[in-house]
């Protein structure tokens, strides 16, 4: 997204810059403009919170543990490998 010189950021630009902001890769001047906008915009502040909540909720997904059957499967993989090695 093209950002004009020293102009203030608008909300529509904010939502596209948010990941770079969270990743800490916005150039310093841009970061300042981002934060200046945030401090005066409750909607973008809410949007930022929602992105943080999204990341948090995604981190809650977990996969199932290794089943006993799979455990046996992998033990036999190991043994097969050992026998082909020797």
């Amino acid at each position: 997204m093209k950002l004009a010189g020293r102009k203030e950021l608008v909300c529509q630009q904010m939502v596209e810059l948010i990941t770079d902001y969270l990743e800490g890769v916005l150039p310093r001047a841009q970061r300042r403009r981002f934060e200046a906008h945030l401090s005066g915009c409750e909607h973008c502040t809410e949007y930022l919170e929602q992105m943080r909540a999204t990341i948090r909720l995604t981190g809650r997904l977990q996969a199932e543990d290794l089943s006993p059957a799979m455990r046996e499967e992998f033990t036999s993989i190991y043994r097969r490998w050992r026998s082909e090695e020797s």
Partner: protein
Amino acid sequence: MGLIPALAGGRLRRSKAAACDEDGELVARLRAGDEQAFVLLVSRHHAAMLRIACSFVSSTSVAEEVVQDTWLGVLRGLDGFAGRSSFKTWLLRILVNRARSTGVREHRSIAVGDVAPAVDRGRFDASGAWMSPPQHWVEDSDDRLVAEALTGRIQTALGELPERQREVIMLRDVDGLSGHEVCEVLEISEVNQRVLLHRGRSHLRQALEAEMAVLR
């Protein structure tokens, strides 16, 4: 995709350094011929590997084959593992390469994915200010039903993401790899990684927003 939501209190993440040390110890034991160490290593990484493999291939059974094949590759290539990157990064790289070469999705695009905006243009006025602003989320994580509905929605939305976005989200936000590690595993640039992460997260936020509107 073999995911189940962990509802009570979110997931516990051990510190990365500690996890690396444990891997290192197990690898040393494995090198010394300890079969149990192999099974322990598999247990530690199996879930994440299966999840990632699932995002490359069309069925869980193919993904399982890819994972098994990866471990065989690990055993065969263990002598070549110099420890320059972490064991997990090395492991996931082998996995991703195998998953890609199974050819199940040979025609997968390597483009960055869709270029849809993070938020529908219609929600902003001509000046780019919010016209239909985001409503406050009352995220009551103590409420099991709400938590279940939200994690369920995320799972569905993850399944609907373009592959490249899903891969990055899985590694970054589900498995907790750093941006740098994701780049190494998927062999993509930092910029690409961020673009994919941004698109993916924006999609997931939209999905949650829709779910919140139903719950409200």
